[in-house]
């Protein structure tokens, strides 16, 4: 269904020859319409959601991009902005919302917590939503300023500019993977190991002997 059927244009060779004038024009029109009125699905959980609201307010005014119509139903949304930290309890909800969005859809991971777990390398926090859903743009910050999020949105627009209808896999619905995490288990294990300063922050108050259990893969100084 969807895009794969629209390739039956009389002048285009369906097996992907060099770009012809008409496909380029069609790509331009389709990409222009997609990026000019991209309705965001604000999956706001924590502090980043407040900056997302500030972006929607008058000073930063995301309405100039055609995006003030926040779509709280995923069925009508184009862009999932995951703003805020996501816990393992919330992860199936995020995955379900992503699956409910029809193609074309993109995802922005806003903030440090959504991108990598942020300050929360703890038992309950997903260490980056890219383990759950495929992410197109990561916006770092804690929280990123509204201008930062707008820059992330403009990067998505750039990404949309570069898309083409001749690649059916790009915007194909992937219902076989619905409900599954985005990355295989060993990749999840690899990208969620503690890094940086969190490896030094394993210890409770030095005077206390707690018998705390550490995991063998945790790196100690």
């Amino acid at each position, binding site marked *: 269904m969807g895009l794969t059927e629209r390739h039956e244009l009389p002048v285009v060779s369906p097996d992907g020859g060099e770009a012809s004038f008409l496909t380029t024009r069609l790509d331009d029109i389709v990409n222009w319409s997609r990026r000019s009125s991209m309705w965001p699905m604000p999956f706001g959980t*924590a502090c980043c959601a407040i900056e997302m609201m500030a972006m929607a307010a*008058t000073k930063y005014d995301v309405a100039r991009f055609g995006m003030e119509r926040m779509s*709280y139903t995923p069925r009508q949304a184009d862009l999932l902005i995951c703003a805020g930290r996501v816990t393992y309890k919330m992860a199936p909800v995020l995955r379900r919302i992503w699956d409910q969005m029809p193609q074309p859809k993109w995802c922005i991971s806003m903030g440090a917590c959504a991108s990598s777990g942020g*300050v929360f390398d703890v038992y309950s926090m997903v260490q980056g939503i890219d383990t759950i859903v495929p992410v197109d743009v990561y916006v770092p910050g804690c929280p990123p300023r509204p201008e930062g999020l707008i820059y992330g949105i403009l990067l998505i627009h750039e990404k949309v500019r570069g898309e083409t209808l001749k690649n059916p896999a790009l915007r194909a619905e992937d219902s076989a993977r619905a409900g599954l995490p985005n990355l295989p288990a060993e990749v999840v294990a690899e990208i969620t190991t503690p890094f940086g300063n969190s490896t030094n922050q394993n210890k409770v108050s030095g005077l206390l002997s707690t018998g705390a259990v550490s995991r063998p893969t945790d790196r100690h100084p």
Partner: protein
Amino acid sequence: MSTKTVEYLVRRTPELGVDGRPVQLPLISGDLEPELHGEHMLINIGPQHPATHGVLRLVLELDGETVIKCTPHIGYLHSSFEKLGEYRTWNQVIPLTDRMDYLAPLIYNCAYAMAVEKLMGIEVTERCKIVRVICMELDRIFSHLLWIGTTAIDIGAFTVFLYTFQERERIYSLHEAFTGARITTSSTRIGGMMADLPPGWVEALRHFVDTLPRTLDETETLLTHNNLWVGRNRDIGIISGEDALDWGLTGPNLRASGVTYDVRKDKPYYDYDSYDFEVPIGEHGDCYDRYLVRMEEMRQSLRILDQAIRRLPGGPINVDDPRIILPGKTDLMADMESMIHHFKVVMEGVKAPAGESWYGVESSKGELGMYVVSDGGSKPVRWRVRGPSFINLSALPMMVEGHLLSDVIAINASIDIVLGEIDR
């Protein structure tokens, strides 16, 4: 609320009356399909929903549109702040405090620093006390502005959101000029603040205090005597004073039900008893009274800010104790002893004596309690946050019983919750 209600429903009988027309008898319940009975419906709101103010999930059992039972499910934002606090030194916990109530971060920063300073027996300077009072009252206004914006959106009045967010942008600028960040301020330190007020900040704050009442007046013009607003909020979500105390409500929710309890008046800190301000107390305990209490609280906070600005003294903002506060950069670069103190404070952290402290401050949502337990080390043994929204939300099931589904949204908005504080 239309006044043209149908006064009676009739059914016609086959008999003809004296005027040649069918006799009409009043319809009584049970006439139509007496065996018809309804089933209760289970509706799930959230955790991703525009009107739940965060990742709150409400499961409602409805009879038609009337709520029979409401069960909030929380924990979708549980970031284990309290566990994380056990692995951080006393000063490293401060950035965590911003991220709990991200609508009033300075209040949390101050409350935590005040609790640890009490535990350590540190008395901050006079200037620091007044700067912290300014921060807390500014963030009370900050939080209430967001509250009225989002509550109005939930009820359907979009304009108020834009007005209040414009004012909040001004507070964001003040935050950023003072602390470097708009939301996650992390501005207090044990023994003082991260930096003193920048030049021109007090004048900018004075300008804000002088011009905010105009926006508050505009908002009140739009809402306070608006038929729709009153109709959606009056007599909705009523909770009596005894019930409110029983359920542990604090803050504007409790005061709207008529109970006179404000931590700033009943257990004052930082010379709040020397400021001249009033605490608005409601009567009916409905959503409308909660709205009135918060609007008036913003005006009273402006009064406190005005007085605090007037009495702001000069002098140092941090205590003069090198074991606690980082030395100034010029001293650090010139003096070996300062460098050693800097090293010890950063690497080992500040040490607190063994003991504990429970410190309550009046946050915008209610009484915020910070409970810190120390064993003599540089990290807390236990850091407990008594988040007012957690306890305020626990009263929601009782407040929405018997109301309509649309009232659930209004009541949920009126108790002013923030999920970062609830789920911690």
